[in-house]
């Protein structure tokens, strides 16, 4: 696509207008780029120049951001971009047939854009729909439970010029904001617990908090034993105390709704069903630490929730429980898993590439724009609102000694009832599997790829911070699944999502994946097992953020819990010569080029 001078000048006006909408503020770079992407379907060099001029940055700084996020494109994308969720769960549920149907109807392969600029087809990692696979995003519209026939039908409607919403759900345009959300995506709440998904009284926690001194709120949260629900499990009250105790002019409360861990989708359900409760919790946190600004960092894949969340915020403002002092804005992400890491998330909110920050200083002392920042998970904020309503003792009484309250589990994969389960901490994996109709599971990935893969002998372990810690993802695999295919997939996920800052993570994960491929091809020896362990250790020890510190976990935990799978695929050397080295395949290409056989290794010559 060539921009002529005349068109270029007209476009500059549009871009200037977009930048002006965000106050020409460089910290809103991600918003600016998302709007330009939506208007133009790509971020052209000319657009980058125009943005750089408007916000007072260099072109390369703009390009640094634009090239970082996978939802921003430096080449023209189709007017309709179909992003197929390429999670392992989708693959096992028949993704290939769906891809083939789209590709055939649209005449393009994944990774391509049609010549007329109408369609792009691409793969994207987990979009948080693992309980209704295979799934895809069509622009911002989510299509779930795809089949070959349904994919064809949608593609044909799109080709006929029907808008994505209508193409996925006829009658979409007539639906209200909230109805659209529920029409696109199922909630699949299978077990409502006492705290979050059961009956909830609106704003009761906030009312209680308003009657308390900020210090007393923090005391209550600390007394409840609440720990962060995103995965790391840091004590929420302590985090708030640090932020409140740091001298500063501004403090910020951020809700981490960048639910990117494959297999996790509980925040999606919370934001659909309990958005009010989440915002209530943020408002309480703001009162506790003395913040006037709140940000919800919503992953780009959940763009379909944006209008709904704005409506809830607006309604809260109208009710007078928001916007009087403290207010919340929603920062949309753009498809980067690493932005779930709080440092990277803050970078992203600041309009930078989503790269983690060096710690210390921790965000609670120096976070967003250098101010003390509390970052908590969606679920954590909702817990806060509930425990202030019902009292910290009520919350503390649930769960186990070091893990209090309830936890949302996103169960997906080979089970009869995939969906969200709210259970007190301390449940056995076996019990959760029974609830989900997955008694015959052969392996369970607890906590997503960065968590632990366990086998049947570990199903009596408990889901809590004392034993199996998890941000909530429970992915079930039946005995028909190939463990190494799963590990291989998860490594390709981390290879894709590494931000590239630390070499051991950027390069090491590629080597880990290659080593796993070697096992899958039957070309590994027992030395490769040692290699996997040593390389994993190096990556964990030398990466600066949680991504690199956990990315070797699929390898390490499968080695630990399924050692025989690896052992079965290794081949010992014979007379000192590696059984895995195949001289015949190594010289086959040269035979073809030289048009002769080997004097050394072809039998006719050597015998």
């Amino acid at each position: 696509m060539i921009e002529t001078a005349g068109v270029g000048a007209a476009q500059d006006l549009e871009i200037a207008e977009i930048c002006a909408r965000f106050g020409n503020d460089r910290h809103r770079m991600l918003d600016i780029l998302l709007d330009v992407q939506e208007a133009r379907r790509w971020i052209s060099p000319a657009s980058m120049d125009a943005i750089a001029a408007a916000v007072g940055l260099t072109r390369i700084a703009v390009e640094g951001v634009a090239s970082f996020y996978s939802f921003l494109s430096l080449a023209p994308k189709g007017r309709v971009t179909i992003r197929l969720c390429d999670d392992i769960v989708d693959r096992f549920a028949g993704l290939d047939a769906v891809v083939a149907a789209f590709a055939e109807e649209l005449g393009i392969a994944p990774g391509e854009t049609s010549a007329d600029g109408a369609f792009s087809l691409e793969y994207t990692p987990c979009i948080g729909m693992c309980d209704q696979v295979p799934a895809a995003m069509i622009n911002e519209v989510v299509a779930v439970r795809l089949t070959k026939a349904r994919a064809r039908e949608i593609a044909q409607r799109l080709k006929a010029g029907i808008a994505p919403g209508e193409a996925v759900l006829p009658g979409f345009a007539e639906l209200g904001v909230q109805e659209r959300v529920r029409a696109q995506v199922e909630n699949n709440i299978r077990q409502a617990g006492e705290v979050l998904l059961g009956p909830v009284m609106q704003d009761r926690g906030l009312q209680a908090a308003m009657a308390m001194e900020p210090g007393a709120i923090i005391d209550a949260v600390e007394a409840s034993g609440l720990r962060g629900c995103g995965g790391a499990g840091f004590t929420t009250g302590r985090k708030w105390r640090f932020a409140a105790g740091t001298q500063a002019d501004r403090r910020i409360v951020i809700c981490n709704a960048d639910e990117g861990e494959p297999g996790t989708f509980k925040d999606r359900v919370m934001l659909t069903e309990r958005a009010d409760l989440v915002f209530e919790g943020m408002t309480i946190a703001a009162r506790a630490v003395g913040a006037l600004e709140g940000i919800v960092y919503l992953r780009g894949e959940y763009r379909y929730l944006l209008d709904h969340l704005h409506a809830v915020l607006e309604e809260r403002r109208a009710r007078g429980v928001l916007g009087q002092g403290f207010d919340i804005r929603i920062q949309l992400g753009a498809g980067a898993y690493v932005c779930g890491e709080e440092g990277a998330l803050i970078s992203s909110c600041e309009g930078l590439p989503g790269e983690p920050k060096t710690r210390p200083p921790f965000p609670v002392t120096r976070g967003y724009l250098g101010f003390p920042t509390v970052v908590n998970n969606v679920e954590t904020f909702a817990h806060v609102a509930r425990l202030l309503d019902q009292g910290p003792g009520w919350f503390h009484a649930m769960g186990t000694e070091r893990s209090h309250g309830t936890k949302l589990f996103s169960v997906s994969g080979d089970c009869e009832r995939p969906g969200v389960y709210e259970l007190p901490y301390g449940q056995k994996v076996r019990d959760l599997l029974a609830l989900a109709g997955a008694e015959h599971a052969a392996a369970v990935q607890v906590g997503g790829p960065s968590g632990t893969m366990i086998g049947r002998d570990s199903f009596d372990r408990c889901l809590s911070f004392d034993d199996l810690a998890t941000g909530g993802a429970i992915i079930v695999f039946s005995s028909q699944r190939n463990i190494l295919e799963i590990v291989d997939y998860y490594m390709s996920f981390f290879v894709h999502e590494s931000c590239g800052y630390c070499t051991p993570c950027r390069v090491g994960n590629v080597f880990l994946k290659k080593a796993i491929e070697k096992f899958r091809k039957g070309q590994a020896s027992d030395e490769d097992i040692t290699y996997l362990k040593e390389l994993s250790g190096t990556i964990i020890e030398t990466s600066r953020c949680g991504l690199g510190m956990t990315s070797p976990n699929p390898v390490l935990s499968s080695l630990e819990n399924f050692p025989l799978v690896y052992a079965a695929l290794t081949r010992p050397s014979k007379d000192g010569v590696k059984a895995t080295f195949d001289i015949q395949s190594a010289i086959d290409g040269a035979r073809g080029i030289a048009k002769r056989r080997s004097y050394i290794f072809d039998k006719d010559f050597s015998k």
Partner: protein
Amino acid sequence: MTDPRKARVATVSLAGCFGCHMAILDMDERLIGLMEKVEFDRSPLTDIKTFTRRCDIGIIEGGCCNEENVHTLIEFRKNCDVLIALGQCAIMGGLPAMRNAIMHAAEPLRECLEEAYISGPYLRNMTRLIPNDPVLPLVLDRVYPCSEVVDIDYQIPGCAPSGDIIYSTLATLLDGRFTGFDREDIRFD
């Protein structure tokens, strides 16, 4: 009691540049003391081209880029008790393994040879052909480190390894007290 026999050492350069063999000479006068304990069998240093007897130590320079390298390496494994990979090419493939980066072509080897002999911009190849004399060994699909072809007992890192690290490794191996490398000996200058 008679003197113990001298240890027999064989060396070879596969896909290497002979730099590691030059590095062996960097042991300088320590070679004289070492030669009281060892004798060279098959080696470019003696010009003996086949094994005459079983050897105690085999030293390999370079990785495997063609079938003859593989054949020679397997011969070394069969005839040596201890096999040492000397230098980065033997350990990792080294400089020759740069061609392994041509991996996304339909026929990476053909692309590599064509660029080297036909299409490269700085070539003067009057025949316009890829060399294909029957005496030339067939080239492998990629360059393999020695450890992917045979079991390797020790790897001496460096490009080239220093005379010091080669000497200390050989001396301690011969005395049966090799425990690993000194950190300061592992360097690439």
